[in-house]
């Protein structure tokens, strides 16, 4: 827990460029070998994390994609898009298997449950919907919030669903019955831009548009941790995630200052900051910047055609909207807003030259 706040560095392993517009969502596949990226350019990219190759592009949505979710068996992908629909894709063939229609406004977020037979989606129509993955039917529509729903996430055992909304509320739902179990909100109830369960589903991690991330103990209805060590979150729905490894237990979150912030889960201190390209040159000697060039050059030369972070810039050049943590290793993927439009994969390691 107290293990080296300054002894961790992140090296850029891959830069995936190819999306024409902002990256909305990056998701590691459950087994960790693939990365799916959803973008405002209406497509989803599928990347091989060992070779860095772009394996596939899923296109078919009529509008920008806001969220991507992996089916637990890795055979399917779900996408939520601004064309008011969700689509299920066959990862092997790239074919669109289902179009889930019913939402009356942009679909903003989606997630599968652990057995993979249900898909939850949240939308700007302020509702949550549960879908039967097998048939593509809507199982339930829940008038969940009074503002756009920004995130939905199942607990690991599928019994509960958490939703967050710009109305400042986080709600917990009984998956089986669709009943609201609890509502969490803070005194100032800033709009909640993201929420997810902890891996054991005892806590809820959320981002709010007051540049803070919080961990709620929902049973007691309290925030037990607050992370406001510098990340900026005032207008976008940034995502964050739990990153737990033998290097430490961290909260990783994107930021509108083009950086990625890594907090210590328990101490709430900033463990590392992956600076954006604009600031990278200034801080080249500090933080993670110093260690990046060697690792970055190879993939950048091969795949980084038109990478925004040109000429030694290793960070994002625009707000980091999408963050996702590798399911088993201390690796994070980040996606930048326009005009950056790149996806970057960072691996954490213990810093050789500890301060």
């Amino acid at each position, binding site marked *: 827990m107290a293990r080296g706040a300054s002894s961790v560095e992140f090296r850029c392993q891959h830069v995936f460029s190819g999306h024409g517009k*902002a990256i909305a969502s990056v998701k590691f596949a459950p087994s960790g070998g693939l990365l799916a990226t959803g973008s405002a350019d209406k497509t989803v990219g599928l990347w091989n994390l060992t070779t860095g190759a772009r394996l596939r592009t899923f296109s078919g949505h009529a509008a920008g994609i806001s969220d991507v979710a992996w089916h637990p068996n890795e055979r399917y992908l779900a996408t939520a898009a601004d064309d008011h629909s969700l689509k299920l894709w066959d990862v092997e063939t790239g074919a669109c298997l*289902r179009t889930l229609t*019913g939402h009356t406004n942009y679909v903003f977020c989606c997630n599968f449950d652990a057995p993979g037979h249900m898909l939850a989606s949240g939308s700007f129509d302020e509702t949550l919907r549960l879908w039967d993955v097998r048939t593509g*039917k809507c199982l339930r529509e829940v008038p969940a919030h009074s503002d756009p729903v920004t995130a939905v996430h199942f607990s690991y055992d599928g019994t509960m669903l958490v939703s967050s909304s710009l109305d400042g509320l986080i709600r917990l739902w009984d998956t089986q019955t669709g009943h609201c179990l609890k509502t969490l909100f803070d005194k100032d109830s800033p709009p909640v831009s993201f929420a997810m369960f902890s891996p054991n589903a005892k806590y809820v991690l959320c981002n709010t548009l007051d540049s803070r991330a919080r961990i709620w103990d929902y049973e007691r209805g309290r925030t037990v941790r607050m992370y406001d060590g510098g990340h900026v979150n005032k*207008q976008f729905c940034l995502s964050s995630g739990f990153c737990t490894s033998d290097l430490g237990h961290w909260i990783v979150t994107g930021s509108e200052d083009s950086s990625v912030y890594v907090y210590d889960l328990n101490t709430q201190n900033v463990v590392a900051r992956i600076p954006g390209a604009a600031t990278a040159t200034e801080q080249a000697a500090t933080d993670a910047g110093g260690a990046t060039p060697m690792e970055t050059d190879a993939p950048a030369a091969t795949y980084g055609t038109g990478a925004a972070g040109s000429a030694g810039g290793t960070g994002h050049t625009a707000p980091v909207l999408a963050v996702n943590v590798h399911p088993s290793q201390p690796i994070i993927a980040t996606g930048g807003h326009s005009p950056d439009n790149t996806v970057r994969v960072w691996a954490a390691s213990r810093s050789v030259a500890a301060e």
Partner: protein
Amino acid sequence: MKFIHACEDPFQSVELPEVIEEFLDHGTALCMAFNRRGTLLASGTKEGQVVVWDFDTRGVASVLTGHEGPVTSVAWSRNGRHLISGSEDQRVILWSVLDGAQVARVPVPSAVAKVSLSPRAPYVGVVSVAEGPPLLVDLARGAAAPAAGGDCEQRPQVEALPTAGDGSEPASARGTNSGGVALFSRGGEVVIAAYPRSALCVVDTVSRRILDVVRVPARVTELHLNRKGTLLLATCQDQRVRMYDVVIPTHAQQQALPLQVPSEVQLAEALANNKSVKSGSLLHGPEGGLLRHVRDFQNAVERTPWRMAAFSTDSEHVVGAAASKAQLQLYIWNRPLGNMERILEGPKEGALSLVWHPLRSLLLSCAASGRIYIWAKVHAENWSAFAPDFKELDENTEYVEREDEFDWNTPGAGGDLGPSGGNAGADSDSELPCLDVLTRERMQVFSSDEEDNGEAASELLYLPVVVEPEMQAPAREEGDGTEAEGDGDGEEAPDAAAAGGQAWQQQQQQLQQAQAAQQQAMLMQLHGSRLAQFPRRGPGGGGYMVNGAPGPSGGGLGGGAAAQGSEAALGHQQLWPRQLPDAAAVAGAEEAAGEDWRRGGMAGGEEGREAADDMDDGGGGQHAGRKRKVQFDEGALEMWRGR
């Protein structure tokens, strides 16, 4: 608080079901069984299919075909990987649930009435047949070479249970034209068999020796064990349901203290000497024995005959299904007190089968029409779940507002704030307990009665999801009544996204609303206005409701109708201001016209704080980059103008 209960112990929130919430319709169901956790439900149909339902989604997960006659009974293995089914085609099939393969397929001499499967491999089935005594069927034989002990090899694959009364009751079993009923005890150590001649027999599974014979005053037509295997319900022909304590030592206990197996002589003597005994164990007296009578359940006034009876999840209640063919009637008794607590009346069709969900207070009944009705409690909305400071009052009270009630920045407005809530950094690290975000707690419910910890891992709870490519059905009008039967998934609403246009959407909405109302009315009629107020799906949402509804217009609505349907159903329950359909249509039109993408333009340069204020202002100002919010406010204004 209900929420806590739901987390800690599902049993504490067990409440009696009240109304039919939903029904499952795939083929003509005759029998059904839940797996141990209630995630999958198997039903046998008249058409010879075994249907495995994904109970979470209420969808068909797989259909097993192999029987040629009506499937009359199904049962699960303990780990949920195998399923046994018996049919009137005089066959018993052991299925591998995961791949749908037939592990064993055994012919029996008569139509099968009931099957029971030993909990673990090597699997043995107890098969109650229409004529003759129940049979023990060795199902491992078909799959692999008999690896079990030497004496097993000599045995035939299908063997009749030893009958108790061979000597004393000459006309037993074979003479009568109906057989007995038998099932395994929970651990599979013994078989409990009910013979036509009013006796319950306890037979050792391995040695096939009779351990005890218990007289019952009337003929037993059905047997049911509770979840822990400690209580037995015997549905009798004298309009009573008899409950017995099952005192059967487990294998481990037996090794420590071997059960006294009565010799043939003792047995014969007991049978011969106790002909006058009407009730109780013949070997151990009325108070002893392996099955001890506890109580009868009956309808003393109307003398209702029973089809079958079952225990609730926590064994605190007993539910009996009346044998009436004209009316679905379920009686629920309190198990310890014996008093009747509730009568559930369903559609005008008899009940064939009854199961209680192993974890939740859901009761399922197979009706003569072949539908499986799901009974649930009417949900009373817990409003305090929606807002932590919401208090529910039983009666009106005069409310005196606090001085600062509506002041801005009211302290404590957000309910209980944690030590670090709102003032992070104030607490030093030492005060914060280390957060454990990884350790998952085991479900308490099952660990208590779990003697086999390793087995939980091998349990099959869900069938893999396979998404078949969508049939590209020609775009047709929603709700045109041409929907395929059963769970056919050809009812995707046509891709509305591109179609956009406001007029089209409005037209659709009107159509859907009208149809939803119609469906609702129809279902209300069907269920005597007692349909659950919070249906799981909108009346038009799932195929089941729609398909099953009688009447000429029982056709399906597309998925898109679900929204309107559940809105109609919710009606007064709406708590939060909702976006008006018109606003949505406008949004659709605008979105189609202009390029817009939400994650990018979320709060478009304005303070996030205002998002919450907008709702309060109601009027709303022009916020650059907040297109949706403006649309909402326009809609709200229209709503007010209308009032």
